[in-house]
């Protein structure tokens, strides 16, 4: 019952926040001095042509009417057409979301599989050689700018070794001869589902460098958090008691200690994952990864307001949804929260 109440509270909060984001984005798009109508027309339109185009876009109506129209359309799932591509914003977003989701989800999975055990080991062997190495790499991972890391990996794996492709999501030959048919939008799933093994190999090779970049960057945070939390937990009396009872070390570390650190780790992962789904903008740009981040940036840079509004709304919703899921996982991890 408590979970149902929590869920209801969170969903209401989510709706409120999405509504707030829509309002802020709408106001921002209207207070910018630039004219979307001018962008739509291109070239060097006269003021009369701009005024006519503004009327077509409804930009000449009172702000409140524009706002209500926008809210109404958003509720109906109509985000309008991009001023530049003339394609529905929802279609543009959907096409790019798969690329971002695939990259960031894989990165998060890798980070969890590698970062948490390393953090635990580092805490258990505090001040050992392993711990020192992990701490050094973690600090470097947090400190290094993402574009430097991305370009260094490109230079090494493409430039010097020639092992991995430099950019894009699949080879050009795949795009032209044997494109991966979209089912889920995730190439690493769609390619095997459709028997396109050539596409699968290419997608795997292409995701390697951006994935490695993101993983290294995120690994640092997750490893540090896990290590620090574990060190604190290992000082707790119930852990010392467990040792005194002679319980196996692995059980103490992974069943008792690690469990107690999961709440902060989950929080960090939820926030980081939500942020990444908004587009790992720098990494996407360096690797020409056709994800949402680069789309949002180019829409904002070109003042394509339906595209930037629609994409931001989508991103805000996704971010909140991820964090809702994280909130719902808390009681699963910590039973005390089920009755709180």
């Amino acid at each position: 019952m408590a979970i149902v109440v929590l869920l209801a509270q969170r969903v209401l909060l989510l709706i409120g926040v999405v509504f707030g984001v829509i309002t802020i984005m709408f106001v921002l798009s209207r207070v910018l001095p630039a004219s979307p109508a001018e962008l739509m027309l291109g070239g060097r339109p006269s003021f009369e042509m701009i005024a006519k185009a503004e009327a077509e876009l409804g930009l000449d109506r009172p702000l409140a009417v524009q706002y209500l129209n926008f809210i109404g359309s958003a509720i109906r799932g109509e985000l309008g057409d991009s001023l530049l591509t003339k394609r529905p914003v929802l279609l543009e977003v959907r096409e790019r979301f798969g690329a971002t989701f695939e990259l960031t989800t894989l990165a998060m999975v890798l980070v969890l599989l590698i970062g948490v055990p390393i953090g635990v080991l580092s805490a258990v062997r505090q001040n050992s050689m392993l711990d020192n190495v992990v701490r050094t790499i973690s600090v470097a991972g947090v400190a290094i700018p993402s574009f430097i890391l991305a370009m260094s990996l490109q230079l090494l794996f493409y430039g010097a070794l020639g092992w991995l492709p430099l950019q894009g999501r699949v080879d050009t030959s795949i795009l032209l001869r044997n494109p991966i048919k979209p089912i889920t939008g995730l190439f690493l799933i769609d390619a095997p589902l459709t028997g396109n093994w050539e596409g699968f190999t290419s997608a795997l090779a292409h995701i390697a460098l951006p994935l490695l970049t993101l993983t290294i960057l995120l690994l640092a945070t997750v490893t540090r958090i896990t290590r620090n939390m574990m060190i604190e937990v290992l000082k707790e009396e119930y852990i010392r008691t467990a040792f005194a009872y002679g319980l196996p070390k692995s059980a103490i570390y992974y069943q008792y200690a690690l469990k107690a650190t999961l709440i902060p780790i989950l929080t960090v992962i939820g926030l980081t994952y939500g942020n990444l789904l908004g587009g790992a903008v720098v990494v996407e740009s360096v690797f020409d990864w056709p994800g949402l981040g680069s789309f949002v940036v180019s829409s904002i840079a070109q003042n394509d307001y339906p595209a930037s509004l629609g994409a931001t709304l989508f991103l805000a919703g996704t971010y909140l949804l991820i964090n809702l899921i994280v909130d719902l996982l808390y009681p699963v991890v910590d039973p005390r929260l089920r009755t709180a």
Partner: protein
Amino acid sequence: MTVNRREILKSAVGSSLAFAGMGWSSLSAVAQSGPTKNTLTWLADNSYRNMNPATNYEAEIFVLGNVYETLFEYKDGKVHPKLATSWDRANDAKTWTVKLRRDVNFHNGTRLDSAAVKKSFEFVRDLGKGAAFLYSGLENVETPDPFTAVFHFKNPIAFDLVAAGQYGAFVIAPAAVDKGDEWLTQGHAIGTGPYQLTEFQQGKLLVLQKFDDYWNGWHNGQFERVIHPFVSEPATRVQMMRSGESDIALVPVSQIESLDALTNVAVALTPSWRTQLYYLNTQKYPTNNLKFRQALMHIWDYDSVLKDVFHGSAKKPVAPIASTLWGHRTYDLPMFDLQKALTLLEESGVPKNDWKIKALYGANSQDIDAIQLFQANASTIGLEVELDQEQIFSTYLSKARNPETTGNMNYMTWWPAYPTPSDSLISLFRTEKKPTFNLSFYHDAEYDRLVDQGVKLEATDIEAAAKAYIAAQDRLMQNAVAIFYAEPDRVNAYSSNITGMEEASNPAYEWLSIYDLRR
């Protein structure tokens, strides 16, 4: 079957070695595959969005110029026939009779005729977007026979120049016009050019295929297929050029020397009609003072900017109009001279406390470096320059147009839509009640009269028009309305086994003519 840890490790190492052996080069692989061998891989630095030649006014023109053609072509200072064979102007320059080639087919196999030309130009005019302003005076097009088109305009017009322009002048097949704006915008095309647009994946790549039935024929060594993927990151484009994965790419000027030193890559610097300038605001204090503006022109270190910011890929302008365009005069533009600048500032009568200006500029790295150098030089003689950068061009424009937020110096890069000085002289400096591009806020009745006279004469007497334009430019120089600081070249890195880069470049057009390249 069970899989143990050792087997997993073995297969992981095996996969790594397999990748290592591959030596990744996905583009060269596709270039050598398929039915056609001579494929050009050419990297795009822009994500193309609007592929409609009737409305496009942006970077897509790089591709569209290889797919569509114009009635006339401007080259080496003259108008030449292209899809037209000859043309005749009525005395009033309001009516133009154009004879068409009889051997031209569109990519869908239909014949180019006067009805197609009529439909195409009226389509551009009626859509009213992009460069349609050039055709706003088009009343109608008569088609007395299949290969004669008679254009009627409300006012005198230099139609041969306008229709030799790079925007809005392409002839589009009737079948494509019937499909409409949206169909064309989304990457479909039917033109008469040497290449057909066969594949367009928005934000990813496009493919051009040789049009076998091209009226000008084909020769050995020309490219049969062009793969044009979008690679946004300049550093990535440079790496792909270095590795041989790409044949042509626009590269940052800072890479010119290092790429040119490679044996497999050459760098072509080809002239353009682009001019980079800083408007000097003639209405805003203290640049509303002529001597103050003249002082600013002497603070600009032209040579250092050209050498260190542009790495030799730009020329010092000789006039407000690009030196390769008709109607310019070679002026002795001011020299970098801080002492002279200081003297002029003192003579201006502006109190020393007010020696403060704002410079508004964009996101291009060269703009940033150049204006920062200006700021440093200005500070040595006591002039304070506040730098105000606007990353988004449309926001920059709105800010620069607003008298409350505009700068004393406002940045611009300009190139004409068609081969005429009037495009720059009118757009940039003619009096406007509400400025669109006159960001000097320059009001000069005599200047306006001269450029208007130039436009009228352009259609009938080009030499007299040039004189009027030069007289107008004299006034711009006398009144110190802008710092014209660079005529940048186009910087293309290309594989050294490709020839014809010079023939493929024409300053009148932004695009590279792939048809003129050979391997």
